[in-house]
């Protein structure tokens, strides 16, 4: 299982799913209409490292985080 965390304003509890790659996570999350606008503008981290492609492999226990648009300061 991998754990998906939604950070900041997404306001959605974390979920767990079976997925061997980020592409599989994307497929599942795209089914949720509430998440659609966030998928368009969120960055993605795997185990707290930002990633740039869906080919990123996932293994049991990995954490995937969605980071929506930021504004510190």
């Amino acid at each position, binding site marked *: 299982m991998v754990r998906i965390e939604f950070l900041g304003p997404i306001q959605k509890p974390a979920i767990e799913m079976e997925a061997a790659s980020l592409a599989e996570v994307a497929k599942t999350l795209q089914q949720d209409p509430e998440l659609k606008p966030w998928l368009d*503008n969120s960055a993605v981290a795997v185990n707290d490292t930002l990633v740039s492609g869906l080919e990123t492999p996932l293994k049991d226990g990995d954490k995937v985080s969605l980071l929506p648009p930021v504004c510190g300061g």
Partner: protein
Amino acid sequence: MLELYDGALDVPALLKRWYEEEAQSNYGAYIPFVGTVRDENGIDGLSFDIYEPILIRWFDDWQASASEREAKLKMAHSRGDVLTHESSYIAAVFSPKRRVALEMIDAFVEDFKASAPIWKYDLIDGKRVYADDRSTAISGSGILAGGAQ
């Protein structure tokens, strides 16, 4: 050094302590940037969420690049609510040379705005309203939206 606090920052105390910490370090320049919450659009203040694991990595990367230029960065940020006229953010550069410090405070604060995993909300009538109009998508955002590759 990265410091996170619940609520508003104590600006005089932080600037004084940072000054004293480096007073004998032979830096020729100390340039602080203090961010203050402005009274505008009827807000009572701002509120912040922080994702610390990635913020710490982001800051450590910056500290490493400052170190290559013999400079040092310090930063403090608030979690939770900060009222108008209070401070939520202080960044500072210490450097042997003023030019390095002036350039670095500019680049550091700009990258902070674009990349640091911190989310801002307006405080209006006791509610937190996400400041989406002032927020910036982190570089590389949107990969999950495009469908399976």
